């Protein structure tokens, strides 16, 4: 076991981990941050997506020890202290970008990462960016729409209004 320390959603945290402890296990089991989900074991579904030092990563495919000293952001840190949703979260609700909610934390974190580097993505760019985030409920329609809306683009013309 080794002691690790990092900053998660702005708070300093530490814990004892094994070499094999994954970041997602540290977040869920030791910190109780169960908003980050595990949906596969081959690093494809993206339900476990978080940011490490501002970069989108799959927390199921990174050892906790690799995040030593890092700044980690998870879904629990996205809304404001008073509960106000972030622009992305609000757009997901507004445009029904989630159904069962299981992939949602990963989708929101992936969307955040996209908009940080590409504030006005095209539809194709949004879809391409979500290559590593699988949703089984929505057919992606409202996820893509929500992300484009969160970027401030007019989505009124999109089909199915």
């Amino acid at each position, binding site marked *: 076991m080794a002691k690790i320390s990092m900053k998660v959603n702005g708070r300093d945290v530490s814990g004892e981990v094994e070499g094999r402890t994954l970041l997602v296990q540290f977040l869920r089991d030791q910190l109780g941050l169960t*908003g980050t989900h595990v949906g596969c074991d081959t690093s*494809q579904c993206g339900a476990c997506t978080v940011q490490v030092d501002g970069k989108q990563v799959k927390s199921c495919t990174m050892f906790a020890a690799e995040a030593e000293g890092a700044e980690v952001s*998870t879904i629990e840190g996205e809304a404001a202290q008073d509960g106000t949703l972030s622009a992305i979260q609000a757009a997901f609700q507004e445009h029904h970008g989630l159904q069962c909610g299981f992939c949602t934390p990963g989708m929101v974190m992936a969307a955040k990462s996209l908009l940080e580097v590409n504030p006005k993505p095209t539809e194709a760019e949004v879809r391409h960016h979500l290559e590593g985030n699988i949703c089984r409920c929505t057919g992606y329609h409202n996820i893509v*729409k929500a992300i484009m809306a969160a970027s401030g683009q007019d989505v009124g013309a999109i*089909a199915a209004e």
Partner: protein
Amino acid sequence: MPKDHGIGASNKRREDIRFLTGTGNYTDDINIHGQAYVYFLRSDVAHGKINSIDTAAAAAMPGVVRIFTGADFEGIGGLPCGWQVTDKHGEPMKEPPHPVLAQGKVRHVGDPIAAVVADSLDQARDAAEAIELDIEELPAVVDMKAAVQEGSALVHDDIGTNLCYDWGFVEENKGAVEEAFSKAAHVTTLELRNNRLVANPMEPRVAVGDFNRASGDSTLYTTSQNPHVIRLLMGAFVLGIPEHKLRVVAPDVGGGFGTKIFHYAEEAFCTFAAKQLNRAVKWTSSRSEAFMSDAHGRDHVTKIQLALDADNNFTALRTETYANMGAYLSTFAPSVPTWLHGTLMAGNYKTPLIYVNVKAVFTNTVPVDAYRGAGRPEATFQLERVIDKAARELGVDPVELRRQNFITEFPYATPVAVEYDTGDYHATMDKLVEIADFAGFEARRKDSEAKGKLRGLGVNCYIEACGIAPSNLVGQLGARAGLYESATVRVNATGGVVVMTGSHSHGQGHETSFPQVISEMIGIPEDQVEIVHGDTARSPMGMGTYGSRSLAVGGSAMVRAAEKIINKAKKIAAHLMEASEGDIELKDGAFSVAGTDKSVAWGEVCLAAYVPHNYPLEDIEPGLEETAFYDPSNFTYPSGAYCCEVEVDPETGKVTIESFAATDDFGNIVNPMIVDGQVHGGIGQGIGQALLENCAYDENGQLLSASYMDYAMPRASDVPFYKVDHSCQTPCTHNPLGVKGCGEAGAIGSPPAVVNAVIDALHSGGHKVEHIDMPVSPSRVWAAMNG
């Protein structure tokens, strides 16, 4: 002007707040102090005789609490099947036992052999590797047609055959159908496979068993679409625990799509082991484990023939289908290729004579059961493909051929035993022609050709049967359960309402849409209505969510209970206003006396019910709480017309979906936003089935598509924005909301449109390809073009 509350309003979902902030409560988020973890050692061969299981060394490994094998479950019930199909000779289906842990033989890759309970999951897995197994591998049965040949190896030796049943529907019509075929001007024949799928809700299954020695109560937390059904099946048939000592909780559930209907061995095991060990036992499926332990879907091989007269009227239809049951009968498996499939074969058409034959076959594969649509996508796919093929053979427009044969008068009794109450198939087709811009297709095709691509347009119609019912009928058909739904409406003293429903929400948004109905009925804001579901300790006996039934059946139960509430509240209001009950009207949250300005607010009546100082105690009881059970008199019959446009890259065979349009008639709609979302999701899964998804076994019964590395899930880049329209509404005539159900339509209606479009595209390029089995992958398209 769209409504901003009540029925018809696109209310934002209240459950989204917890899901968007990471504060949902999924089963894997539940941890019970001191819990142990179970790892299932699963068979890596498809078929084998268990000579011995030596757990001695494993049991001595660090952290091991106990190791269970099939021997520990001797004398305990196996997993029950909830539907008994009677074959064409009047004999019951073959129903082999399904032990919780394998006994004597293993019958599919993934069949659980031993369960290792340890202090940690890693320790359990370490110990599982130390179990010494002696399993003699036997020849595997994989191909369905080979499985029913003489001399095939047997999945279950003691039943002497791999044929579960041979079902004819309607057997009495068979002669007349044969005769119609002999007189037909044209017969179109198509042989196809409906590909085996894995449901793949993004949340893998989880079970946490708990036991309270002081009270003797067992609790199971599980990823289920229907906790009451699990309680009944597991309590009564497997573990012998009466309902009052067994609580089943299905908290937030991350998608179901059918595969979380069924009662699984892992649920029974965790409940059983928790009691044996007096310690909570938790199992969390990995995705790889899910591929070999979640019930799969579809997997039919069908020959369909359509007979037409000289005027292109459909005169008869006959099908022969082999339906894969897998190695054991999953909970509702026998019903899927029969009553959920044969009854749909009329589709939207007035074909007078239909005969459906289904041979259900055991193989050494994972059990197959309902997956979104369940039997109805299989029916729709074959029917809508054979119609397209007939149109091409006859040189007629596929849309016109469909229109010509549409059912236009309702109610309509089909030759396959169901009666459609309402529908307007021309209306949905008309709308489709408009929103899919059929008129512009040829221009778009030319644009595609200019880029070196082949463009195709595919259309299909569908009919669905939702909310399977009534119970007395389905009982005759072999169901071993009722198919009603329940609701308790509890009004609190200060006027707030709690609805405890037997329906379960795992993405459908009941917590938002159900209050809209109550709001509409009573005239109070939605935020005064709370929905409770997913806990047998908190809701009346319910049947759960599947078959697009929640609003049509569960919502109707809620309406019935709310009607009882309103009737009672009117009595109280009449008393308070010293008026006649018959003169009381409820509007906008207030009771008034017709023709007067007397009025009393909803909240005052509720308060009077609980503080009955001025109250007609001699006539009615205090309190305001009512329960209703609703058993529908018929299925509901949503219908629609779908259109897909594809481009095919002739060099690589790759198909891209250029557009997808759907028109559905769901009757009345409570929350249009949610309904659109349900259709989007269904289309996404249908495109997945059509182009990407393929659960494949090799000839030895090894699962080839055992993870997301080989099972192609649709990604955002595989699909376009969809055009959906729900303006065609013919309300259901027999439920109080006039609703029809929308959960499965997208998955039912979309695969044939995609494949029809691909075939159309290939023909436009001069490739006389009549069919490509799903998934229509690039390699298959290329092979078909170059075959």
